[in-house]
């Protein structure tokens, strides 16, 4: 028994993203004892394969090609499909990231398969693999099953816990040659706007600011708060549009979806499009001067007050806690 599951690993700045390890954990559940094969694509990436094994992959297949140095749906789909043909898996798991969202529908279409996107939970009940996913901008959830053929899902980052890293685990790493050809879309230029440091979509603590911060200068208040907490800084659309910070910090339906342990919303009103990107956070704190602000409806803890007074005090108090610990 058991299913063979193929999992796509994903890189950011030449490092494996956490979601790749979470996808392996999801694959383990789906596999029910079957083999979990991780797939690693890129120009020169073989050295990373072992880490995938340490996080639970039984085996790693590597496809290296200079045309895979940058993502393109044509190039990556050719590599994935070649490996799918060779491995013949019963299930496939991708991360629900910009790359996964772009690539998975094409691969599903080529395989004539269904696709369950943006999964936050996987369980096996009564012989069925059941997936939970948010719908209606996160206001509701649905449970889905695959009724015909291949099981294909993408998993939302930071929801399915990765397995404990086990450095003693070993597994086979093999290379497959795939001829990558006819790329129809060519990346001419990449303007990096994402800052170094903690990856927002994978951060355990997010401090997010809104239009209430009033200026780019004001927005800097959040840097220090995020730093004491070891977290990342995020923003509402309002703050991005007003030019207080870069769009790469935007959280919500059009921005990043985050699920940290702690989300601190500062001067954010709580529009539905913003909530769609953070309402699944484990603990939510709201700091807003308007007691009627929508953000308080989903907050676990709230302080009604002027953020310019509250945030510096909070940063100080957290520093004290750190010193005492």
């Amino acid at each position, binding site marked *: 028994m058991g299913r063979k599951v193929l999992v796509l690993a994903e890189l950011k700045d030449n490092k494996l993203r956490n979601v790749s390890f979470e996808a392996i954990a999801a694959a383990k559940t789906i596999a029910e004892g079957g083999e979990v094969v991780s797939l690693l694509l890129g120009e020169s990436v073989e050295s990373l394969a072992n880490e995938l094994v340490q996080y639970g992959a039984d085996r790693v297949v590597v496809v290296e090609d200079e045309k895979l140095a940058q993502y393109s749906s044509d190039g990556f789909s050719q590599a994935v499909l070649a490996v799918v043909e060779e491995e013949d898996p019963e299930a496939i798991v991708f991360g629900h990231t910009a790359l996964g969202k772009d690539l998975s529908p094409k691969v599903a279409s080529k395989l004539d398969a269904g696709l369950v996107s943006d999964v936050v939970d996987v369980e096996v009940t009564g012989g069925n693999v059941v997936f939970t996913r948010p*719908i209606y901008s996160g206001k509701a959830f649905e449970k889905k099953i695959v009724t015909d053929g291949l099981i294909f899902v993408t998993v939302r980052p930071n929801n399915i816990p990765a397995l404990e890293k086990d450095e003693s685990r070993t597994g086979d790493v093999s290379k497959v040659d795939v001829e990558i050809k006819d790329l129809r*879309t060519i990346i001419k230029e990449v303007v990096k706007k*994402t800052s170094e440091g903690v990856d927002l979509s994978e951060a355990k603590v997010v401090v997010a600011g809104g239009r209430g911060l009033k200026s780019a200068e004001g927005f800097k208040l959040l840097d220090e708060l995020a730093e004491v907490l070891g977290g990342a800084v995020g923003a509402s659309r309002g703050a991005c549009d007003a030019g207080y910070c870069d769009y790469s910090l935007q959280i919500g339906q059009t921005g990043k979806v985050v699920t940290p342990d702690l989300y601190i919303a500062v001067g954010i009103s709580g529009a*539905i499009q913003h909530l769609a990107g953070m309402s699944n956070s484990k603990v939510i704190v709201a700091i807003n001067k308007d007691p009627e602000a929508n953000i308080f409806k989903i907050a*676990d803890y709230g302080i009604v007050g002027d953020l310019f007074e509250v945030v510096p005090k909070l940063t100080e108090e957290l520093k004290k806690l750190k010193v005492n610990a």
Partner: protein
Amino acid sequence: MNIYVLLKRTFDTEERITISGGRINEDGAEFIINPYDEYAVEEAIQVRDEHGGEVTVVTVGGEDAEKQLRTALAMGADKAVLINIEDDLDVTDQYTTAKIIATYLGDKEPDLILAGNVAIDNGTGQVGPRVADLLGIPYITTITDLKIDGDKVTVVKDVEGDEETIETTLPLLVTAQQGLNEPRYPSLPGIMKAKKKPLDELELDDLDLDEDDVEAKTKTIEVFLPPAKSAGKVLEGELDDQVKELVSLLHNEAKVI
């Protein structure tokens, strides 16, 4: 230029969501054009005005979607097509929807197809890329800028906040991200004109499709609301004490710091 927009009628998720009989309760709910599809309609109109041609808006859905199609016509689209599946299909998924749309577009020789990046209700973002694949044309998702020069196309794609400038060629499918443009409101003359613009209605039969050809590959077995959050705790008292209490709660009660 032969331009198509894929438009979905969606539940306005700003509304309160309730469940009855295991489904999202749609009685009395507000339905809108999926917001990302409004960007697609706007961009299509701008491309047509610059390069000439015709904009056709296509929806797979039921009779009720006529309203949203008329709105797109009032914005300035030229024609609308409703592929009405109400009577034929009970269960559909993205596989179904994409296959129906691609079958319809199969003999239309589109130069440019615009879709939304994601539908705000079901939210998978699958339909655009699936349709492109079935038609054998390239696609670029989440675009914030589009320039067309002959057959050459340059787009800016949003990738988790980074910007990629990508070159490709027509025919092409793109999906719209917020920031692409500011959708116009239908004008009064636009609304009057829209009443006379063609809105064709088709069924699966007209596309030579059987229910079996488009049978869904996935199924929803349960819909539920998240457990009601106990009302959050709004702190009181002197600000200094509130801050101390918050830190203590986060440390000792929630245990997240």
